[in-house]
């Protein structure tokens, strides 16, 4: 399947970060559906199946990204999820997906700290979509 036919769902309540992410992902040649809240993402997932999803962590709830990943994986186990967030290690809150334990409750494939470089993001998406 070519990139043009792939749809990537992006959810972020920060308009600016959403538009930057959208522009970047579009520049890789993907189709993008962008939403600004957990609620909108849930509504979208009710009727649509994206090829990959990128969720911000803190939206309507502090753990919106986790909730969305969980719901998405329950409905579409094969759709890869990236959680992107500005919450970072400096505060002791680390949500890596390195241990088996973390993988069990964080239903995402990759966790990326925001300030993500474009080429990094591109590589990660291609890897997850096996392109």
């Amino acid at each position, binding site marked *: 399947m070519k990139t043009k036919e792939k749809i990537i769902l992006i959810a972020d309540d920060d308009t600016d*970060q959403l538009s*930057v992410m959208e*522009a970047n992902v579009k520049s890789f040649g993907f189709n993008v559906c962008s939403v600004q809240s957990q609620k909108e993402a849930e509504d979208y997932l009710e009727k649509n199946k994206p090829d990959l999803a990128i969720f911000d962590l803190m939206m309507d709830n502090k753990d919106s990204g986790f909730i969305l990943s969980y719901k998405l994986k329950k409905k579409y186990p094969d759709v890869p999820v990236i959680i992107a967030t*500005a*919450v970072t290690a400096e*505060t*002791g*809150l680390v949500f890596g997906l390195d241990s088996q334990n973390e993988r069990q409750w964080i239903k995402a494939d990759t966790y990326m700290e*925001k300030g993500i470089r474009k080429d990094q993001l591109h590589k990660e998406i291609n890897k997850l979509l096996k392109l």
Partner: protein
Amino acid sequence: MKKLKVLVVDDEPGIRSGIIRILKNFSVGFPFMDEDFCFDLIEAATGEEAIEIINKEQMDIILLDNKLPGIEGVEVLEYINKNKYDAMVMMITSYASLELAVKSTKNGAYNFVPKPFTPTELKAAMEGITKHLFLKRMTQKMNDEDKQVKFQFLSVLSHELKSPINAVEGYLRMLQEKQVGDNVEDYMEMIDRSLIRMKGMRHLISDLLDLTKIESGEKTRELAEVDIYEIAKFSIDTLEPLALQKNVKLYFDAPESLRLKADRQEIEIIFNNLISNAIKYNKEGGHVNINVKDQDSFINIVVEDTGIGMSTDDLAKLFHDFVRIKNVNTRNISGTGLGLSIVKKIVELYNGKIDVSSKPGEGSIFTISLPI
């Protein structure tokens, strides 16, 4: 009634049964405790046995004889101290010497009860040790909770600080790569948005400074007779341009010269936050009523808007740090999420009260009463 586990370590069965008889139906209560404490008594005849028990089961209080057949009481105490075991130890001994007292105190014994003792003496000692244990654990719990609150604040704060940086960085990288072509005009919106985010950060920093000032306590407060009318007027004048932009009318009603002993800056923060919120969350063409009056030794400040209003769920969390009501109507309104939490903290400094009532789609009313 709560139970505390008490380990009685003595090689004389008579002493052990005596202690148990005295404490079996005894309970300790102080006005500051939610419930009384009674004692669950466990016996050990030697130091070795005592160590075995404390390794298996959490004890709260240990009554420890020093002169034991195997290892001595002081050695048990050393063991407890070395392993940072969370229990209070009281030495019960007939061979009390200064050397033993010093050694025991150094190893964290709470008290001494000399043998022989009367039931009253033992009960009094148990009251003291129970009170101490209770307060020690409460303090620990409060410190932990305090740390937890600070930790949460910092992690949310770092998130709030990083979001604008990430947004601006994202736009700058798009510019660097000329992602939408060579036409400078096509980048104007990104530049405008970046500037807006920088302004938001500036607001966040100034709110943080306000918060620091409040939380630093009395030191930095300057209490003096201030004129509430004049401060409100000043705040309204400052916010008039914002109101014009949103086409919102401001109405002010207050008797001239209303005096209160207060820190001027704090009162200004209250007015600035309430009025700017009333403007920001208003509808195009709406209005804000600002009412100040004194009533029964209170100064009442009422700020009423004709804005978008809030649901009951939103109201419940409104005054918490970094809470911003997020929905379709608030999407384009900027804010730090600290304003109302700061206002509430200031109002509390004056032993005042803040109330809010709101109807979605109709508006909100914030009422503050400050005792004169």
